[in-house]
């Protein structure tokens, strides 16, 4: 089929209607000491210590920033075990015995309204650093970096598009906690001294649009508006979103801040309220568990650090049809597949998708051109693939694979079932070589 990918079939419509189930906090919780952005860490507590909820118990060291580690339950530190992380690596995890009392760390004091009003942008940076706020859409990019920008911000975009198929965590959050989202938007307005906040929604989500039209009537004159954008994948990619919402085209290797735009994921915005008002880190998040390999797809609100196996048990386990399964953390287009369900749910896991594995046979490329038509960055995936096969460094560099965002559409549309994205990843490695 020679055509651009416009719609990716999924089960989101169905799952988006299901209410969120508050999962009970499990007896044992696990916090990874390392993640994709930070490879070293130090721990301040020792085995047998009692910990409070939200206590800072360690520090991860990344390439250009440090990130505190917080507990997500009150209880006892048991020791270190190795479990799989979202990145697919086996990492050491801190294990906590939950006492189910949920005593907050007494040092975390809520702020009064006057204190919040007096906060400056620099204070926001400090607070967000201390609560380890990161992009909860899956990027885990530290939020405070966006507050450090020197450029004047004219427009704030809240990314509620959730363009990946299957995932519905943000959809439920938007429906169930609209006041949190609006409050987060107001905090952003204050921090950036900017009134123009646009909540970007897919235009096909009529339920969300109705809810927010109603809610925003109560906040008349606040400057917060809804912005309807396209229904396609990858509309949630920041550059596609900025183009749809403001008409500005952000060039490669430039930050949105340089164009006067700050963009945040909607879950990050909602979590901002907890951080600023109560000084608390993120301890819970919404996770959708779905896919054709799971018995009862559901939306959950879980403690961060819950084991994936427990979540899958709550959904009734795998479909026992004997087929091989792929377990994906994140969306099915960009998410990582983990080798085992002995895996922990970190705060950037938006969903867990269990699919029946299908490995279609690869056929020779017939140059149908669907990958070229579909590429959101206007690359030529087929030509890059040919260049990688020919091992022609000059040609690879001329085709500019570094602008690729690895959205996976070229593999998705391929008529011959070739994993084109893998070739582009290799091209990116080769293009970085001198």
């Amino acid at each position: 089929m020679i055509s651009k990918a416009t719609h990716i079939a999924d089960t989101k419509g169905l799952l988006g209607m299901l209410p969120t189930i508050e999962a009970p906090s499990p007896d044992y919780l696990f916090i990874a000491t390392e993640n994709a952005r930070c490879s070293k860490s130090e721990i301040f507590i020792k085995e047998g210590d009692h910990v409070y909820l939200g206590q800072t118990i360690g520090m991860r060291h990344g390439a250009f920033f440090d990130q505190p580690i917080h507990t997500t339950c009150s209880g006892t530190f048991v020791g270190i075990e190795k479990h799989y992380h979202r990145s697919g690596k086996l990492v050491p995890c801190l294990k906590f015995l939950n006492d189910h009392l949920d005593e907050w760390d007494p040092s975390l004091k809520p702020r009064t309204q006057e204190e919040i009003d007096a906060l400056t942008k620099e204070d926001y940076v400090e607070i967000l650093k201390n609560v380890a706020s990161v992009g909860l859409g899956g990027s885990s990019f530290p939020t405070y970096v966006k507050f450090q920008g020197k450029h004047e911000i004219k427009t704030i975009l809240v990314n509620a598009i959730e363009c990946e198929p299957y995932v519905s965590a943000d959809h439920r959050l938007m429906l169930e906690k609209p006041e949190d989202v609006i409050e987060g938007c107001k905090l952003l307005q204050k921090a950036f001294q900017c009134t123009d906040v646009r909540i970007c929604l897919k235009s096909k989500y009529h339920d969300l649009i109705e809810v927010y039209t109603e809610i925003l009537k109560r906040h008349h004159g606040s400057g917060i508006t809804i912005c309807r954008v396209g229904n396609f994948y990858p509309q949630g990619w920041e550059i596609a979103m900025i183009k749809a919402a403001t008409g500005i085209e952000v060039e490669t290797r430039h930050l949105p801040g340089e164009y006067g735009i700050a963009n945040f994921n909607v879950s990050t915005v909602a979590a901002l309220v907890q951080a600023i008002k109560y000084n608390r880190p993120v301890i819970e998040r919404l996770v959708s568990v779905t896919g054709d390999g799971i018995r009862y797809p559901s939306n959950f609100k879980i403690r961060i650090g819950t084991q994936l196996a427990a979540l899958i048990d709550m959904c009734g386990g795998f479909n026992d049809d004997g087929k091989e399964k792929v377990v994906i953390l994140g969306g099915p287009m960009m998410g990582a597949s983990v080798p085992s369900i002995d895996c922990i749910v970190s705060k950037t896991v938006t969903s867990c998708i269990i699919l029946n594995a299908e490995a279609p046979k690869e056929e020779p490329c017939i140059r149908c051109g669907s990958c070229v038509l579909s590429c959101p960055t206007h690359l030529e995936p087929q030509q890059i693939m040919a260049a990688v096969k020919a091992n022609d460094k000059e040609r690879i560099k001329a085709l500019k694979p570094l602008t690729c965002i690895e959205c996976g559409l070229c593999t998705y549309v391929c008529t011959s079932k070739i994993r084109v994205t893998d070739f582009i990843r290799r091209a990116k490695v080769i293009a970085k070589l001198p």
Partner: protein
Amino acid sequence: MTSTIIVEKAPHLRRKDSLARMLIDVLIALAPTAVFAVVVYGFDAVRNLGVSWATMVLAEFVFVLIQNRIKYDGTKHSFKEQIKAGVSGYSINNLLAPSISAVIFALIMPARLDPYYLIYPALIAGSLFGIVIGKLVFGGNGSNIFNPAAVGMVFAKLCFGSHYVYNSRSFYVTTGGTPLTNAITEVSGLNSLTGKWTGIESVPLANLFFGQVGGTIGEAFKITILIGMAYLLIRKAADWRIIASYLGTFIVVMSLAGAIICTRENLSFFRFLAFQLLSGGMLFGLAFMLTDPVTSPINSPSRFIYGAFAAAVTCIIRLFGALPEGMVYSILLGNLIAPALDYYKWSSSRWNRRYVIILCCVIGVALLATGLGLGFGGEVVA
């Protein structure tokens, strides 16, 4: 919880689509034309289809055996093992792809040769040359530069062209020769570039449309071809860009030619344009051969240029060439420039100034050649 978990790289979703589906779509699109050919030409069409199908599928099968043979690893393998290894690499696409080439090749061959037995060597030589030299030597499916059917047809015509006859019809009226050769040769004495078209008044347009004229067995009846083209476009097995730019350029250039010719000769402009659109193998080649994705460029602007280039070549061959029919050569020449349009130093998936200039040049040169050639050459004896 007995299921095993496997790890794979993102993305984990695939579009419901396959190469086999696309190839079957092309076969379905060709079916009405092939059925019509069998109804009209009877055994001649069955023989054309059967001989070329058997030759091409067999050639591809042998190629798969060679391609998947056990590589020399020090031990000796029996012939049986070699055959087994070869057959294991044979997929449904190795059957479908040569079938498409074979059906197209059969449909662009004439029903009879004179003497009649020459049709067998012509079919076998053409299809064998087409599939081997046109496709298999480049590496089989997806690696060919030229359309195998077009290569085979040109080879057969070069070898057996003087024996071609187009006058055998068991159905409808019989006319000798294709309308393009006919119209031109009937009016002897008026051997000028514009005067040669005066003969087209004698061919009713309805006859052209309903295939009541001579020609190769598949190209005459336009309704089945248009049905096939529409099916390909609906199923997105052919790119609309190539068809649109080809037809657009063809109509523009032929309009200029028609305007010049119709002011000189006693001809109706619309009749000239309709004759050009409906005669010869133009529609058949456009629907099934030019749109072959393997041999067309990959970027969408290059596809527009590719279609325009092929149309320009067709027009110039028809107006000035020694051959009455230029479709197959325009397809081959278009295939030839496709890699150049996609050369990495200037290729881009979006329109840029360079592509616009190239497209304007292609159409401009075609218009200039037509205008100058017909304008000054109208009275010159060619």
